[in-house]
């Protein structure tokens, strides 16, 4: 097949990635700046035997992908701003009932309807703790159009493998930006499908984990009848008030991620070998940080670059290692300080942590980061 470079939008790359990963169902309610994901899914899903449905609101969109996933279909929804808030209750349901699904959040300025057409990174903590109770979650954050494709594929793979909701945390810049990209041939991709039961339907215990802490999942309407609930439940899927069952379930859900951290966590780093100052940035802000590193390196400043790609769980161990090596970590983000809280927690008494924050709806400029670095030099 002939490869072709083409100009592609981040939101479009997200749908291309989803379809390449095997998405067969999309439900949602369009909202700027994620609308193109719904539009393009509506156009493309029927061509691959999939279904698109526009629901009455974001809550219903989230509920619909949970239902579709239970029938065995790889499912996704996309939203932004207040829509992400509305999805939270059902994200918790997907977490406790271990239902694979991908939730895309193209971040815009908040709170509430905020700045509908402007970028922000104000949903970092909401992605982790937006739904109530201790719960597992994975969040991935792309910083280019090509990476949006790759991480959408990865989001599906992780959600299928670990039966945990996966959030693709984009931002308006990455979602709307068009870049020259070359997509991989489908044959080059690794595609993971959920484990399905190998026992008979009579012997099936729907929430009995295997050694990897993940229970095999039967598709609805295939003869494996089972109960699904948001209540604490035992391995049969029926509710339980037992202290022991509650303790075991929540611990297993959390351990499921903890146990596989090394498989889940990814990051990018550059120029960290001799760095005295480290720029830690993600999403569109990482583009400014990368430009800042190049400009500062050309002036001889020993500055390095670290970009968490998996933002939740956070790459704690690597950041702790780097904190031992550098004098200062600078964390630029388009909020008043969210991911920096993780960095501060990890680097307490080890190295200095400085912030660069912007919340006016504009992307952080390289020169704003450079100014901060020159200040702390």
């Amino acid at each position, binding site marked *: 097949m002939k490869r072709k*470079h083409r100009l592609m939008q981040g939101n479009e790359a997200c749908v291309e990635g989803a379809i390449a990963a095997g998405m067969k169902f999309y439900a949602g309610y369009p909202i700027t700046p994620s609308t193109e994901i719904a539009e393009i899914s509506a156009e493309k899903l029927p061509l691959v035997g999939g279904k698109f449905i526009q629901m009455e609101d974001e809550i219903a969109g989230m509920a619909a992908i949970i239902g579709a996933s239970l029938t065995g279909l790889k499912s996704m929804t996309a939203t932004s701003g207040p829509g992400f808030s509305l999805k939270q209750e059902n994200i918790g349901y997907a977490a406790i009932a271990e239902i694979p699904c991908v939730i895309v959040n193209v971040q815009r300025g908040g709170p509430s309807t905020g700045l509908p057409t402007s970028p922000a990174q104000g949903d970092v903590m909401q992605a982790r703790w937006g739904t109530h109770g201790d719960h597992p979650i994975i969040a991935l954050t792309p910083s280019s159009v090509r990476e949006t494709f790759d991480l959408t594929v990865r989001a599906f793979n992780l959600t299928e493998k670990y039966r945990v909701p996966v959030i693709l945390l984009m931002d308006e810049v990455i979602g709307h930006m*068009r870049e020259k990209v070359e997509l991989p041939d489908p044959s080059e991709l690794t595609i993971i499908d959920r484990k399905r039961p190998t026992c008979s339907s009579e012997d099936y215990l729907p929430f009995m984990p295997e050694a990897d802490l993940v229970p095999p999942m039967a598709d609805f309407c295939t003869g494996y009848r089972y109960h699904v609930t948001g209540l604490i439940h035992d391995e049969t899927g029926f509710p339980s008030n037992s202290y022991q069952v509650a303790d075991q379930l929540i611990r297993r859900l959390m351990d499921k991620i903890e146990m596989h951290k090394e498989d889940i966590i990814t990051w990018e780093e550059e120029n960290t070998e001799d760095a005295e100052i480290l720029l830690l940035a993600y999403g569109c802000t990482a*583009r400014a940080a990368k430009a800042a590193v190049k400009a500062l390196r050309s002036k001889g400043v020993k500055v390095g670059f670290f970009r968490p790609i998996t933002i939740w769980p956070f790459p704690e161990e690597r950041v702790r290692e780097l904190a031992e090596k550098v004098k200062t970590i600078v964390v630029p983000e388009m909020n008043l300080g969210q991911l920096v809280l993780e960095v501060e927690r990890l680097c307490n008494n080890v190295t200095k942590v400085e912030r660069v924050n912007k919340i006016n709806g504009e992307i952080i*400029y*390289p020169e704003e980061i450079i100014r901060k670095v020159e200040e702390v030099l």
Partner: protein
Amino acid sequence: MEKYEVRLSGSGGQGLLLAGIILAESAINEGKNAIQTQSYGPEARGGASKSEVIISNAEIDFPKVRNCDILLSLTQKSYDQYHEGLKDGGILIIDSSVNVGEDHGMHQVYSVPILETAVLVLNKPMVTNIVALGAIVAITKVVSHDALEQAVLSRVPKGTEELNKKALALGYEIANNASRQ
């Protein structure tokens, strides 16, 4: 050529987003790297909107325009809002209706009747963006004519190819007739 930063500004509904996409695709047609971003308000029509394109032979880290080489302003409001950032010696292309006052000493300013050409000569306001692209490329040579025409024809709706070719040619013509101020 190292790197060109282009900002297209005007009013929502003038098709500048599409113009930015076409300009970026023209650059890709020539084997260059390109990135296109946009900024607009919540309103579908009116307001001030901008579409930005960076063209380079190298990797482009920061996606937004910081040192603008080429600025197009189709309306007074968009000129007022977005002209800051045009670098010294940069090229400013304005519609004839835009008044830049006294602040243009440092720039190469071209006043071109883009809106008038689309509305009165072609009688098709929807080709304003294509006339504008013709004018920009005639003045700046930021991409080749062939690459631009190929990109325009692959993006416009079927059945409008001749109209758009004409709009492009007229854009070239009015730009070549426009004198530098």
